[in-house]
């Protein structure tokens, strides 16, 4: 993808969603206002980031067929558990599905809800980003890929779910859970210690 195309895309995205300005290469920049969005939710109602002003928001890119996502869902319950803990303490947890139609992980809103029910997942909402606009605005590359936005609407964390890039469930216990650590830092009013980490997993299945 050339820079020119990236700029065109940004221009288009800006026109459509009246997004806040962001950098040329790293779409979502730490300590800067997180890109705004309004996307259809799984229940059909639009979801806007601006609606959660004053709350800590987690964005989690996901693809239920990706082995790395399955590592943290079906095979361990790691992310569902984290979702419950976070939402119980007032954090808004948004699942984002950017798989394009026909590609791995693409689901309808109804399918997404059913999947979460089956997996014991409890996000605040599921975003069906089938055209990948939000994903590209944030620079989401992998599933899972996680972002944390603080109450001021600024991006304070971007990166992996934890510190051991692997598909082995047994590594979860040994790894540092970066999202958990970031949420704890935010809750305590501290600067997030590990604000940018390596995301790992399958690539996000964009249309191009």
């Amino acid at each position, binding site marked *: 993808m050339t*820079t020119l195309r990236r700029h065109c895309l940004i221009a288009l995205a800006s026109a459509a969603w009246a997004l806040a300005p962001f950098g040329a290469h790293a779409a979502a920049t730490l300590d800067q206002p997180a890109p705004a969005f309004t996307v259809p939710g799984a229940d059909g109602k639009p979801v806007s980031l601006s609606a959660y002003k004053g709350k800590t928001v987690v964005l989690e890119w996901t693809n239920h067929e*990706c082995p790395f996502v399955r590592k943290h869902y079906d095979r361990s319950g790691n992310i569902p558990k984290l979702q419950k803990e976070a939402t119980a303490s007032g954090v808004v947890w948004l699942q984002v599905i950017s798989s394009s139609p026909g*590609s*791995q992980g693409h689901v309808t809103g109804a399918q997404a809800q059913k999947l979460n029910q089956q997996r014991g997942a409890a996000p605040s909402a599921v975003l069906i980003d089938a055209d990948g606009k939000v994903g*590209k605005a944030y620079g989401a*590359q992998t599933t899972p890929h996680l972002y944390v936005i603080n109450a001021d609407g600024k991006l304070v964390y971007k990166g992996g779910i934890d510190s051991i890039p692997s598909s082995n469930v047994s590594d979860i216990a040994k790894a540092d859970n970066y999202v958990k650590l970031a949420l704890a830092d935010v809750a305590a009013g501290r600067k997030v210690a590990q604000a940018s980490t390596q995301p790992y997993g399958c690539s996000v299945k964009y249309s191009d």
Partner: protein
Amino acid sequence: MTLNVSLLLPALLLALAAPCVAHAQAEAKTEQVAVRLVSAAATVQPGQSLLVGVQQKIIPHWHTYWANPGDSGLPTTIAWTLPAGATASPIHWPTPSRYSLGPITNYGYADEVTLPSVVQVPADLRDGGRFGLKAKVDWLVCHDVCIPQNATLSLSLPVSTAATASADADLLQQAQARVPQRGDAARWQLDGGKLQLSLPQGAPAHDAAYFFARKWGLVAHAEPQQLQQARLSIAPGDNAPKGGDAVDGVLVLFKEGKPVQSLAIGHDPAPLTPVPVSTAPAGAATSADAPSLLLALGLALLGGLILNLMPCVFPVLTIKVLSLLQTAQGSRRVVRLHGLVYLAGVLASFAALAGVLIALKAGGGSVGWGFQFQSPVFVLLVALLMFAVGLSLSGVVTIGSSAAGLGQGLASQPGLRGSFFTGVLATVVATPCTAPFMGVAIGYAVTQPPAVTLAVFLALGLGLALPYLLLCEWPALQRRLPRPGAWMDRLKQALAFPMYASAAWLAWVLARQAGPEALAVALAGAIGLALAAWLYSNTRDLGARGRHASAVIAVLLVVGTVGFGTLGVTGTSTAPPATTAADSGWEPYTPERLATLRREGKPVFVNLTADWCITCLVNERVALSPSHVDEAFRQAGITRLKGDWTRGDERITRLLAEHGRSGVPLYLFYPAGPQVEPQVLPQLLTPDLVLTALKAPTSP
């Protein structure tokens, strides 16, 4: 040549039992990837750096990942399970390719990749054993979707001091060629929000460049990299380098879309230092400094010539010349025939020796020149043979058409047979001697395919036979010889004494190898032989029945003494090795001691020797022991290490092999300083030569 046949049989059995490589678990296959554990060598040499690899054959459109997989994906990992003491290097990653899909860029491999690692084999492996490698390989293979896969692969290789390339040697050679070459540390700066990487000087002509960062976050993988002049401008990633940070990765230069250079810049990790892959089956030399075949053949010929002057060979040859004198009147044709038959005897013996070596090697045995003298039984038999030849020279017995064919009428058929066996005898008695130039040739020969080994041995044999052959072929030379006369008998009798001396020396070797009991057995055997000879020659005047009876008794005596002697020595051959502590100023050689001294940068002189090696003993006496040489060693603070190969020693065989030798003597001088290559001294030493070597500048 019954002596060598007795060695040949077990060797053949060994060869038949030679284990083959287990292929069963070395491969695995998923729908997308076929993986295989491969080794460059078919045999594992103790102490070697073994080049191994995991090959992935990937179906079209799918790929596996490099050390930094890029925006998504996972690098392939290999977890090794190796025998105690063995270690495997991390993967020496071949230069990756780029795969971009939308905003995501990945680094990895499509179609085929072999990921090489170097396994350090411990030095204390037992020859003839097996070396098992197990690799648990985890990889992620992706196209539209990603699938984590794994396989556990294993390989079991025979341990041998002889290097043998495997069928995968070429594959690993190519894999090594795909690993980036070592470049310098990256020269970079952050300028205008970009990471500006300076290209190394002296780069080949190129029109594009790409930098693969080793670590995630250093650069934005998906952003285009702009080449301007000798600078590559790259968008930094989320973990952009700060001043003082290392920028590690692989810089690839392209011309017209094709990579022309791939450099590993930065420090982490060290690129693969090429491990020489033996290509023995193809018949090529194993390393650049190994002698060429022609040179080896020339050195072998020269070595064979010099063997004629060795103390145990010289009497045999002299006697042969004497017998030629006696029959100088014989027709030229017959004389020439004798020369050729003698040559045939020598060549047949050398061919048999080469055969044993090849068979032992095929069986994974460790062999070298003079290896048969590591067997006390062989030493006993040769000692008795030398004694018997001595008896014959002394005139105690004149054995009909004797094995040595001494003084027989040349025209007769038995005389021809005698010439043949003189050739055999010359070879047998020559084996304890290593002539100068021989070591290099034979060291080369044993690492080569059978045909080359045989050729070098035959060249050695030709050298040994050449002086006598020339004498037979060249009447002019025969006329220069003194007239025959009574002096010949006296000379013959006199020449018995070098043979007795040789026998006595071998008896001493035997005592050192197998203890005093073996010496008693050898002496009893000698007396038995002498009694048999005396009986035989003193009953020749008796009637036919008496002659026959005494002949039977003599044969029984010979068979009895040799047979029981062999049994007796076999029984005692497990006696503890002779101590070398008595050698003042010398410490026993161990690889550990040498390694410790070298680490400390201390000068070391290594002397690899064996009691049955006359050249070694002469060198020690003449060039290493004199008081002024001893003084020079002491003043220079040189540690002297002595490796005794009399009974065979794996660790010594290995050190010999490292210097391309297969037999003793070998003299190495490591000057002071941590990383200096040893100087290899010639096989014939003089005090001056040693003193000059010790004074050599300490630079490598």
